[in-house]
């Protein structure tokens, strides 16, 4: 499967990852190389095989009780680039709404 420049740009936009224009050709070529390599999986006989899953049986749960190690909001937001009153700050995502 060959990836071209436009497809590389489409994938980058899906991944919310800006790739400089002058790197797109190289990125596309490297992705194509790896996808060419993984093509060998098509030659494998996988009849009757289910996808692997390692989840422990029964889904371990702990008691539904307040946990003393839960971080308070002020601590959880301490490492954020912008935070206020225990909230993460982001640019506005909605136009000004009427009150």
């Amino acid at each position: 499967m060959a990836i071209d420049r436009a497809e590389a740009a489409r994938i980058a936009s899906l991944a919310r990852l800006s790739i400089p224009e002058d790197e797109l050709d190289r990125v596309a070529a490297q992705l194509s190389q790896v996808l060419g390599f993984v093509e060998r999986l098509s030659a494998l006989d996988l009849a009757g095989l289910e996808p692997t899953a390692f989840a422990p049986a029964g889904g371990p749960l702990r008691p539904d009780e307040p946990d003393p190690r839960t971080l308070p909001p002020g601590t959880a937001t301490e490492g954020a680039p912008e935070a206020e009153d225990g909230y993460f700050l982001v640019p506005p995502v909605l136009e000004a709404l009427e009150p």
Partner: protein
Amino acid sequence: MTAGEAWRLPAREIARRVRAGSLAPEAAAEAGFAGPAARWERDVHALLAAEPAAWRAAARAARRDGPLSGVPVVVKDNLCTVDQPTTCGSRILEGWRSPYDATVVRRLREAGAVVVGKGNMDEFAMGSSTEFSAFGPTRNPHDLSRVPGGSSGGPAAAVAYGLVPVALGSDTGGSVRQPAAFCGVYGLKPTYGRLSRWGLVAFGSSLDQVGIFARHVGDLAEVFATLAGPDPYDASARPGRAPDVSGWHDGVRGLRFGWPENLWREGVEPALVAALARAAEALERAGAVRVPLEFLPGDVAVAAYYLLATAEASSNLARFDGVRYGLRKASGELSELYARTRGEGFGPEVRRRILLGTYALSAGYHDQYYERAQRARSRIVAEHRAAFGRCDLLLLPAVPTLPFRLGEKTDDPLAMYLSDVFTLGANLAGIPGLTVPMGLASGGLPVSVQLLGPADAEPRLLRAARALELDGDPAGRPADEEREPAWPGGVAR
């Protein structure tokens, strides 16, 4: 031996002396920095952080009666620590400090160990040479022109040059076992889920496992016993009691080891093939039995692995978006803020893998790539199960080559991926693997072998590693005495 020489000691001996009151934890940690690190760290660059105020305070606070009392430890920089930064080798987390300790870090501290520093790594554990660290590569202490392996190259090198007797890494496709092989130390990847991953920054969640580096098999066993066991904070932790590894020195009489010679008939460095032959003969001398068998070629595992690991990474790394941690490239528009932060914050290999994983999971391609890789993985799991029906463990190479030169593979992702050909099968199958150093090749570079076992076979792997450790002792010293490991050339002995 003076306190300043404590860096030569095995971890268990340091802890014994601290418990006996003849060695202070501060002195044990100081010995590594004043001795080997003073000589090596500037050239090797094993550490991303080693804040003296932090490790001195940790040493003063360490309990004096624990199984690892006073043992200095380096942990890979993707394991969260409250007292030193956690960057995962990435600009996107530069300067970030975790508000909590990873469970394995907490258990180290509870056992009396002292976390002295954070080990360098390929960014977000993606790489096989530590060259993809955003903060500069680590170099192999056995030859500074060569890589230490990766992604846990920093912790492996720190153990190899003598800063610490043990270190923690993480192993998603070989990131503990491959650098252990390149640096000439032991590297254990336990069974999937056996060590808690709470506080390990996630890369490929169905593959990630915390692993242990050491210069002595007994130290591996001690650290494994300290860390292993369920954790209510890690729902993927393996339920039930951890296997008892206290019999690590009990020998291998009657143990059957698989010998899948088809794997190294071509494409493996002759010095490593010779190491396999030596290991097999040593195990036979110790009473183990060789079982020849055939195994699925490794390139199938490489193909399945790089689809699954990148798909999982593309999902796990979505959290680094300029909102919750570290770096932010401001923009008035949210999706542009995400894209710019991630584009500038992530290095080339992380970007490549996120793109590959995003593609493999995207509409129209999910069945062709991700689903197919998960089914191929089931075939690999079945292969291993069938092999372990015929033998107790497998003996195979850890790596196909000796340590390569810096810059040799950074622009050829596929060549880099293929250096994991012998290690990533264990991650796909969820089984334990152990790299055993087998001395130095004629050029002075480390050679090694790898042992694989079925789930929960850690005790068996350690017994086999111990048999090889004893056999490799040129002085033929008795079993209860520790041989000093092969230090990189130039370390004052």
